[in-house]
């Protein structure tokens, strides 16, 4: 049952948006899927092109073992069925950056079948999204249209690079869910090391399928927006398309099943190919390639070599360290951040460690645009700082000052030395605190009288005491002694 808050309001009632994503993730291999040419990004025109990639007559494709392994690895990471028998088909169409006249892909028998992953939404909610399939295919070359007025320039360096196309089930119901899914896929492939997840360089891009319907009715006609390469754009495409389609339907029109392009500058979509001209790909098994048979022992070896996956890590953080779903998901989203947290939390209060890592540290890193790997404070140092709070050597407030000193490298060394050197130790000696409080009470008879009628002004005394102690008085002791001396319960 769809939750009402996820429905979109139209002029004539509520609408439900239905989203499915086809994500292309480039396999992080050295060479191409069917040739030994380099798959590296950024070479000069046609430098990374073999006679196979250029589709010269008589050339035959030979598949890259590493690419097959990464597809299996990714499939396992998506909790998906691995098909021990799969095969390659030709997807036929004509375009200048596709010299073969067909793309080698997997149509009927993909290497990976159904799976499922969890995604996390704002507000600490987690839902499961189904994976339909993952298949291996070749990337096409690149056409550049702005180098000459009447001509296009074609570079085949990308031609034949291995892609994993990961197809979701149409189970997302909002722009937020679509972006969260895309983000989670990136986290998973990065954990697995099967794709670098670099959206700027096109290593990961999504075709976004959007349709709308009245709640509970049959699926509406969908549009497909091609090559969306950022989380923000995925959100924009879904929002824009849902709104556009609702407007068309409410005006009595109908949605054409069409392929669209997204214009990042205007935030709008426009038609790429009309339905009349829709491609008929005439798939058929590629006669150059035998069926791909996987040895089940090899698949098990790959399974055994998987790292702990983000969802598993998230659940373990919740159980082992008592973290909220939100905090656990934030930490698990990045392998290095998760490792940093665990080093801090080891043998300490997990919740406190998480608060310091996700709050203070991530906040400071984000502000300065520093990667976790370059953090000026090590996990060990942050752990020591937390120890000082825990054993009441310093208060939480002073700890933030020490943190800032360490972060800005104003003070080198471990936190205990800084506290010692700067005399920041917390005063827990009740005698010393009493002395300060006695002075305040003696010097401020008016406030003392006032606080008996208006207990709210109590905070003023706490503030004064902390100020006179240089922030070093133990707040709990201050509260207790003040209450006693002022006669307040």
């Amino acid at each position, binding site marked *: 049952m769809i939750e009402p808050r996820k429905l979109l309001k139209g002029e004539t009632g509520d609408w439900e948006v239905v989203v499915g994503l086809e994500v292309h993730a480039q396999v992080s*291999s*050295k*060479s191409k899927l069917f*040739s*030994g*040419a*380099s798959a590296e990004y950024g*070479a*000069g*025109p*046609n*430098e*990374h*092109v*073999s*006679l*196979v990639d*250029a589709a010269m007559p008589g*050339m035959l494709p*030979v*598949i*890259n*073992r*590493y*690419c*097959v392994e990464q597809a299996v690895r990714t499939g396992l990471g998506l909790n998906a069925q691995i098909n021990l028998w799969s*095969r390659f088909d030709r997807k*036929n169409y*004509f*375009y*200048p950056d596709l010299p073969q006249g067909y793309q080698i892909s997997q149509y009927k028998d993909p290497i990976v079948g159904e799976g499922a992953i969890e995604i996390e939404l704002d507000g600490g909610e987690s839902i499961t999204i189904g994976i339909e399939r993952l298949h291996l295919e070749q990337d096409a070359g690149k*056409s*550049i*249209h702005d*180098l*000459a*007025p*009447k*001509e*296009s*320039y*074609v*570079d*085949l360096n990308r031609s034949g690079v291995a892609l994993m196309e990961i197809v979701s089930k149409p189970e997302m119901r909002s722009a937020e869910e679509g972006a969260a899914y895309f983000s989670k896929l990136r986290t998973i492939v990065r954990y697995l090391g099967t794709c670098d997840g670099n959206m700027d360089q096109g290593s990961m891009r999504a075709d976004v399928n959007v349709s709308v319907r009245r709640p509970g009715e049959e699926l509406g006609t969908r549009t497909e927006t091609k090559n969306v390469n950022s989380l923000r754009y995925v959100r924009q495409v879904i929002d824009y398309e849902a709104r556009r389609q609702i407007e068309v339907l409410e005006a009595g029109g109908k949605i054409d099943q069409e392929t669209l*392009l997204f214009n990042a500058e205007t935030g709008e979509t426009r038609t*790429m*190919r009309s339905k009349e001209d829709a491609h*008929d790909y*005439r798939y058929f*098994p590629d006669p150059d*390639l*035998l*069926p*791909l*048979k996987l040895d089940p022992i090899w698949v098990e070896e790959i399974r055994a070599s998987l790292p702990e996956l983000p969802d598993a890590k998230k659940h373990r953080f919740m159980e082992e360290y008592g973290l909220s779903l939100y905090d656990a998901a934030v930490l698990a989203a990045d392998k290095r951040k998760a490792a940093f947290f665990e080093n801090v939390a080891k043998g300490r209060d997990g919740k406190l460690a998480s608060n310091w890592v996700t709050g203070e540290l991530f906040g400071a890193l984000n502000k300065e645009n520093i990667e976790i790997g370059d953090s000026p404070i090590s996990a060990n140092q942050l752990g020591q700082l937390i120890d000082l709070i825990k054993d009441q050597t310093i208060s939480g407030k002073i700890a933030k000052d020490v943190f800032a000193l360490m972060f800005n490298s104003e003070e080198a060394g471990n936190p205990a030395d800084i506290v010692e050197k700067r005399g920041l130790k917390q005063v827990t000696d009740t005698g010393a605190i009493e002395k300060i409080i006695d002075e305040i009470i003696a010097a401020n008879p008016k406030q003392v009288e006032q606080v008996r009628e208006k207990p709210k002004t109590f905070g003023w005394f706490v503030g004064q005491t902390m100020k006179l102690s240089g922030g070093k008085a133990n707040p709990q002791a201050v509260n207790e002694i003040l209450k006693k001396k002022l006669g307040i319960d």
Partner: protein
Amino acid sequence: MAINKDIVRKVAHLARIAEPEERLEPLAKELSGILGWIEQLNEVDVEGVEAMASTVDAALPLRDDEVVEGDTGGGKSDAIVANAPKTEDHFFVVPKVVE
């Protein structure tokens, strides 16, 4: 299966083969004949027999992930564009195609 003129026109277009209008009808007849002849295969009972993927009973050979030079590798941009009708700075140059 009977092939009509419209199907021939569509298939010719998808294959980028220019067929003049007056050739469509004769081609439809020819193709229908060929298909009808092949359809005789439908008479064979294949109940319970799995479709063949290949006539060779072998698995796909896998190669190692290595960057190589030569015909099956990169680094030969001169050779790659050598036969192209038009090139510029090792790009293939084609009539403008814009989606």
